[in-house]
């Protein structure tokens, strides 16, 4: 590379991308430095008594959730794309809806339904005089945890696999049919192998959510890596060991992501935009029709209708006590913060994705990788890094103010800026992934055409690139917005004065053992997420046509 090549790399895009990357690398460094620091007494104690249990529980939950979500997600995707049965068009998008229920809300809702004073046992007891064995209704176990994760996370696999099957597989499946293979046969010998890459992509998203979950395992009292980090940090007051656990978790996540990349290899599971012949669903005959319908309905009922109904009932029960004028403030807080953070994330994601796309080099490849890995940094590490950074920043501001002899200074810590900053680090990877795949689908030739017509990269960015990936930007916006809206650990730890979101409000009620009171805040989260999912489904559907 000669010197003007270097000059070409160092432009505005590069500088902005580097700044964004710095944000992500910062907490990563905090973790890694601590990982190699000498161990203390606590760490030996953790290793002896706790680590085996954390590892066992975490692995069990990951493997079981991974398997179950795959089975449910893939089979639903298969039924919905390949067969025609009653209400197929409705289920096509309705099956995504469980994603609108954050797992921790699902967890306490199901606990509320199943426990001794829940609706099922109460009905059995009061109407039929039946008292049941509690162990059948106990959801606060490791199996219950897997149940909850499976219900509310399978849509990740369902959506990715369905898009893939819908667009890519028609010729293969039709060929297999012509060759006289039966449905089961096709499913296992054709569908599973060809959609392997899509499924693994979905599973890795599921596992990432599982590993980073705080609400469910905390509420159920299951000891996993993520609760361990926080209980070591807060309970044992041992930041160093907490960061060591965080580092271990981070390495685990990076391993998963690397495995996913290896399996994916050079194959893109994003589909080409042209010349795809969608699969035409085949009507089902006889009892098969009802069997499929029943299966799909049951999944939908358990993963959405039942918890949603219960939440609605509780909302009515407690509406008068919980709904005050401050509630609007909560909704406004939640929407405002999520909106601001999402916009910032999308701007960063667009800039980095455009930079790595326009100036491919080893350096940009590293930047792209690092951005994706941002997902793997545990929340605790982000919290510690952000607080440390902002304290330092405020110190500098104070010094400067003293030098300039100013009396009033601006304080960054305990402001929304700090919280938003943390969100950006936490969720940049999600925004980046969707935007990057949007760019991948469009290719580079439109950008090149624009530059050949005399527009520079910035002008091209606004006039051509952004309009061309509107759909991807939209779905990135929705994904990130929903994720921020339901985020818990960072919001709990970094919240400014007089600031609550719907998620923290719900969680506070739940930790005060007031499950019914938590319903209103929860249902608003579910409704807003559900609405966004519906909108994005409509938009993507329109784009696919």
């Amino acid at each position, binding site marked *: 590379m000669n010197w003007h090549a270097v000059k070409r790399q160092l432009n505005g895009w590069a500088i902005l991308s580097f700044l964004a990357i710095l944000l992500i690398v910062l907490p990563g460094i905090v973790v890694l430095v601590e990982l190699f620091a000498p161990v203390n007494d606590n760490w030996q104690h953790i290793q002896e*008594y706790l680590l085996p249990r954390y590892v066992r529980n975490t692995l069990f939950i990951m493997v079981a959730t991974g398997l179950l979500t795959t089975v449910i997600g893939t089979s639903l995707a298969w039924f919905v794309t390949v067969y025609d049965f009653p209400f197929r068009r409705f289920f096509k998008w309705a099956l995504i809806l469980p994603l609108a229920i954050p797992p921790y809300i699902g967890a306490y809702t199901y606990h509320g339904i199943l426990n*001794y004073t829940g609706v099922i046992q109460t009905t059995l007891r009061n109407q039929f005089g039946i008292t049941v064995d509690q162990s059948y209704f106990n959801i606060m176990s490791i199996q219950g945890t897997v149940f909850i994760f499976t219900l509310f996370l399978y849509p990740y696999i369902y959506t990715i696999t369905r898009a893939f099957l819908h667009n890519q597989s028609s010729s293969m499946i039709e060929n297999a049919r012509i060759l006289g293979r039966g449905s089961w046969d096709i499913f296992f010998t054709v569908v599973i192998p060809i959609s392997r890459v899509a499924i693994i992509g979905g599973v890795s998203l599921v596992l990432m959510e599982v590993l980073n979950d705080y609400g469910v395992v905390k509420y159920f009292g299951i000891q996993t890596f993520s609760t361990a980090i926080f209980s070591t940090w807060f309970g*044992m007051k041992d930041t160093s060991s907490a960061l060591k656990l965080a580092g271990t978790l981070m390495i685990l996540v990076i391993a998963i992501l690397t495995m996913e990349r290896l399996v994916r290899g050079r194959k893109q599971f994003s589909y080409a935009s042209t010349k795809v012949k969608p699969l035409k669903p085949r009507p089902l005959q006889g009892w098969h029709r009802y069997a499929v319908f029943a299966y799909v309905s049951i999944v939908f009922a358990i993963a959405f209708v039942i918890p949603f109904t219960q939440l609605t009932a509780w909302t009515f029960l407690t509406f008068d006590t919980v709904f005050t004028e401050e509630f609007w403030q909560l909704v406004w807080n939640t929407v405002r913060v999520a909106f601001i953070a999402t916009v910032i994330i999308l701007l960063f994601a667009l800039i980095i994705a455009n930079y790595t796309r326009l100036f491919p080099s080893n350096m940009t490849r590293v930047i792209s990788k690092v951005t994706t890995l941002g997902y793997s940094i545990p929340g605790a590490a982000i919290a510690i890094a952000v607080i440390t950074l902002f304290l330092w920043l405020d110190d500098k501001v104070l010094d400067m103010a003293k030098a300039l002899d100013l009396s009033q200074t601006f*304080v960054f810590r305990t402001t929304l800026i700090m919280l938003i900053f943390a969100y950006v680090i936490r969720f940049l990877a999600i925004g980046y992934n969707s935007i990057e795949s949007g760019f991948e689908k469009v290719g580079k030739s439109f950008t090149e055409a624009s530059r050949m017509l005399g527009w520079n990269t910035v002008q091209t960015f606004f006039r051509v690139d952004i309009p061309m990936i509107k759909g991807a930007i939209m779905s990135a916006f929705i994904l990130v917005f929903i994720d921020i809206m339901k985020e818990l650990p960072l919001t709990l730890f970094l*919240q*400014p004065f007089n600031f609550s979101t719907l998620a923290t409000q719900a969680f506070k009620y739940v*930790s005060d053992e007031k499950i019914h009171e938590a319903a209103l805040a929860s249902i608003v989260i579910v409704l807003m997420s559900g609405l966004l999912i519906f909108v994005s489904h409509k938009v993507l559907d329109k784009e696919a046509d």
Partner: protein
Amino acid sequence: MNKKYAALGISAALTTSLLAACASTDETTSNEGSDDSNVVNVYSSRHYDVDQQLYKQFEEETGIKVNVVEGKSDELLERLNTEGESTEADLFITADAGNLYQAKEAGHLQAVDSDELESNIPAKYRDTDNEWFGLTKRARVIVYSKDRVKPEDLSTYEALTEEQWNGKVLVRPSENMYNISLLASFIEVNGVDEAKEWAKGLVNNMARDPQGNDRDQAKAVVAGEGDVAIMNTYYMGLMLNSEDEEEKKVAEQLGVFFPNQDTTGTHVNISGIAMTKASKNTENAQKLMEFMSEPSAQEKFASVNYEYPVNESVEPNELLQSWGEFKEQDINLSALGENQQEAIRIFNEVGWK
């Protein structure tokens, strides 16, 4: 025109977000900062609606604005640790004496010299150096099934480890602060070895793996999973007055037993308040502390959540009175903090999940 809209949209979004970000920080900064501004900043792990009402009342009476960050005690303490001297918080309110002790040890607190606080709050519920003050008391008691257990069979926490209760004891997981403080108090009263023996014995007698919260233990007793549960008194109060008929029914089938009356006394913990060393609004903060210890506030504060007021001139709630008076554990509450780490280690070692 598409592209123009896109560019316009992006810039509009950017501007609004920046404006919104600035506006929101303006709100907070105007409330914070130098001594002359009329505010008090609170980190509180009590997030009951009655607290909000009291803050409002305080604002009306004094014109001092109360800013609150609500969170779990240990999280807020960790936040104080990280922020150190540059914290914005003036007051730290927690639902556990252990955390107050930890905050004091870490040097985050300052002594408050107030006659009013000293007369309102008995010395037993105050720090020896007046660095923290109790606001309410809660007792961790044994709750039993009225059908299956005769109160005469119950005596002490220690007795729950006996053969008779094998497979019958219910208690929540060990990561919970109430359990940590309970064990910490045993370490203080009986020494590390006996405390560990107790924890081991209790794990041995558990009806199931520890799970759920205090209310779940009560429900499990009624459901027949076990016969007795260790839980805080105020949950009984909350359940008896629940909007949910079924929860009421559960609570009605349960009895409250104050253990160790003939020996070391029932374990009592406090929720308390302390002023940070870095406080920039010390006068306002002291006013709020005093306000909280006054009989009128104490009455609301305690009765809504079925806790015992620390101010002895205030009568506890009727329900609490109906359970009768009891002998409290006679220890310095700082011990709950001193022995916290040891307690966590014991829980891990004996496998109390």
